[in-house]
């Protein structure tokens, strides 16, 4: 008999559900804003809204399979829209979605500090995975500017706090 060690209360490990509108609309809106706002506001590329949405849904649903599928779908569509090889963001966000869901089962990820830290780490992890896939599978030579990656991770962590609070309102509490 295995015992799952959890640092969350029973209430916190409750699996949250979302309406179909939220489950489809939020990722689509994130993808849309990411591509639409990047034109007039170049600095928006420092954020990765699809990644934030992947993390949020993964953590909130707390089901690894659902989380990884959510990440795979969001990442793949992001690849199609960005014009890069389909699978780069797909694989990276699949893994992030899986780990975010797994993390949600074990840790309290609902307070702002943990959300910032979690997003910071997941963003770095995402960039490492993305770069590794790019180099190993695609044969790319581009190594990201890690200083900028750190800055982006920090910015995404900061954005995650209010964004996740906003998205919390979409949860269906049963």
């Amino acid at each position, binding site marked *: 008999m295995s015992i799952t060690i959890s640092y969350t209360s029973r209430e916190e490990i409750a699996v949250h559900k979302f309406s179909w509108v939220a489950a489809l609309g939020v990722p689509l809106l994130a993808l849309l804003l990411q591509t639409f706002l*990047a034109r007039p506001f170049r600095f*928006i590329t420092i954020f990765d809204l699809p990644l934030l949405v992947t993390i949020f849904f993964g953590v909130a649903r707390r089901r690894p399979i659902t989380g*990884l599928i959510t990440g795979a779908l969001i990442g793949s569509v992001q690849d199609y829209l960005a014009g890069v090889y389909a699978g780069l963001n797909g694989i990276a966000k699949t893994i992030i979605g899986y780990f975010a869901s797994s993390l949600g089962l074990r840790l309290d990820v609902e307070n702002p500090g943990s959300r910032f830290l979690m997003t910071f780490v997941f963003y770095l992890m995402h960039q490492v995975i993305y770069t590794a896939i790019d180099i190993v599978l695609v044969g790319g030579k581009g190594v990201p500017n890690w200083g900028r990656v750190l800055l982006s991770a920090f910015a995404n962590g900061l954005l995650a706090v209010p964004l996740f609070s906003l998205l919390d309102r979409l949860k269906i509490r049963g």
Partner: protein
Amino acid sequence: MESFYTRYKNPLVLIAVVFIQAIGLATQIQRPDPQSSARTGSTRLIRVWAVSAITPVEHALISTGHFFRNTWYGYVDLHNVRKQNLALQAEIDHLRMEKAQLSEEAGQARRLQALLGFKEHFASATVPAQVIAGSGTEQSRIVTIDRGASSGLAVDMPVVTPDGIVGKVKDVFRSSAQVLLINDRESGAGVVMRQSRLQGILKGSSRGQVFISYIMSDEKVEVGEQVVTSGGDRIYPKGFPVGVVTSIAPDRDNDPFLAIQVKPAADLDRLEEVLVITKVADAEPDVLAGPAPTRAADVLAQRLPGVPASNANKAGAPALPGTTAQPATPSTAGAVQQPANIQKNAVGPGSNAPLQGQKPAAPVGQPAGLPKRPSAGAKPQSSPSATPAPRSEEKTEGKTGENAEHHNASPATGQKGTRPTPRPTPSATENPPR
């Protein structure tokens, strides 16, 4: 007892999903399709669906933004002004609004004039387009424009602004298209230095910088030198501005070569209106600006006018259509004294300098009554057979006005000022963009 699958269901699903995507990724890379973009080979349909689903929303967002902006500036703001001012003040404000509108229209007119001016000079058919979206990531430099296959766009068409080249069409959908910018790491373009005439390949980097590769490290390149397209990639029009050299350093990846960083002439971060060149003027008019090609036999004939001219007449050469054959007279001896002038003015195929105050001597077999060679831009008045047909390379190289300036920029033409490179001429096809 738990089965293996039940116990490790989550990791197994993760591995399976990642594996499937990795296979899909590998399939895209291993399928070089010369007819289409390799990055979209196996995912074309899904990509079309994704973009087609997003593009209408982006169109709607832009339209909504324009609506609110127009409503604000055209009604709400004006309404507030009217409420706060007297009739005279309202009139002044109205004039200010009108002035602002006129100023906006004047700016737009200037932009359109620039676009039109470009169109006249470089391309025979262009489609103006508006940038509606970017890639949203730092990993790719791609923008989406609001024109697609319905406007006649096709893959690999060059996209430019009056300032310089922007990129090429990467994917075309029904009402939109994705443009691969020149600072994307997958892009490539054949370029040439305007002054030193060195040729190289323009490539982007993962950080959005633009570099020129395949220029030997012993070549002399100066910062500030202008870079133009060479036309060797068969995508971008020749002689179109690319940018300015900003730094020069040894290329660590390609040791004997330089890595020359270029600042793009077009502001790639603030693209709004672009032109897609749907048809490049690859066929030039028959009337070229440069002098007629002079054969060695003709020069010899001019230096020895009596013998060949009389021979020609003795042979009873028929008069060319539209011309009047005249027997050799001492007046043709005037041609003997003019070759120096011809040589002086014959500066190259691209030259449009007229023979100032001189009348070109009639070559052998060409009667003196043959109409003078028309100037640049004029239509030929004589029969095509009366004027020596220009060579094929002259058809593409000889241009007039600004075209001549740009099109003469190719070292391949062997013109004056051309600096030959000791290595094979690079072209974008050597390193095709993925």
